[in-house]
């Protein structure tokens, strides 16, 4: 006896089976995350008054210039690299009075707390995949700005 199967159902069944097989493939458990935090100064001045400051690298500059700001130059003031295992937390001093606390929340989220003079200013929790950039920023005198940039590094 011939059984007619609705063609859409057959397609659906095959696709569902394939998708569940794909989903069953275990995603490699993340180990340590290698992170980099940068303190950045945004300005329209062509040069920083501090010779130790250097222009930010092209990738970060491109992203900053893609934001709705009009600062023409961005200088790297400080840079910290560190590793975080799941559940681990790290406190990094970016300047004399600015600190960040970065914490792995669960396996896939980062909780970033910004401290100014030891007081919490803001906290954000989000996933930070590779090539993703998290920027915390605010005003600085004379229409300049500060940024703390956080990203994964190789």
């Amino acid at each position, binding site marked *: 006896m011939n059984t007619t199967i609705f063609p*859409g*159902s057959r*397609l*659906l069944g095959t*696709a*569902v089976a394939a*998708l569940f097989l*794909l*989903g069953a493939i275990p*995603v*490699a458990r*993340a180990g340590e*995350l290698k992170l980099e935090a940068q*303190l*950045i*100064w945004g300005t329209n001045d062509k040069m920083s*008054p*501090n010779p*130790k400051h250097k222009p930010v690298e092209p990738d970060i500059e*491109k*992203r900053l210039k*893609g934001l*709705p*700001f*009009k600062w023409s130059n961005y200088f790297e*003031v400080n840079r910290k690299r560190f590793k975080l295992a799941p559940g681990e937390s790290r406190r990094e001093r*970016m300047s*004399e*009075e600015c600190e960040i606390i970065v914490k792995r929340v669960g*396996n*896939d*989220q*980062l909780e970033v707390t*910004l401290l*100014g*003079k030891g*007081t*919490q*200013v*803001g906290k*954000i*929790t*989000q*996933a*930070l*995949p590779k090539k*993703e*950039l998290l*920027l*915390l*920023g*605010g*005003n*600085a*005198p004379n*229409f*300049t*700005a*500060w940024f703390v940039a956080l990203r*994964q590094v190789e």
Partner: protein
Amino acid sequence: MDFDKQLKLQAYLDGELPEGERRAVESSLAQDAEAAALLAEFRHTNAALGTFESELKLPESREFFWSKIERELRRQEVVPRRETQLSWLWWVGWRRFLVPVGAVAALALLLVSLRTNHPGGGTGSGIVATFADDKAFTYRDQTQGTTLVWLSYAADDKSKEGASEEAIQD
């Protein structure tokens, strides 16, 4: 006196001129009575207006303030989505195809979203933010994979000195 010179005098009064031009204006004032008189009038007007209303301090830089307006204007310029009406007969004819395809697409989206929340790959970013001030906000640039958290927390004058690594101060 030409218009540009008048503008330069106004800029001089507002402290907007670079050092070289400021000195040039100052030296010209000693020899140009008309310019000196106009500058005095500008100062008088500024002083008079200053008593009428206090200066408005924006919580952000003027560049950022205007860029927000520009962004909002661009957002409003987006063409409204065209509404498509499906007739019932058309739907009956295509549903045999659309139902399974739609189900597959939904499952694929679910699977992709589950997998891209992993920090090692993908672009998902479920954001939870808490701020000490209510003027803070987040901005997401999806194309560049950048999340900005803009805080009203401003650096102080020490950072502007810029000669050290204190570009972020309270």
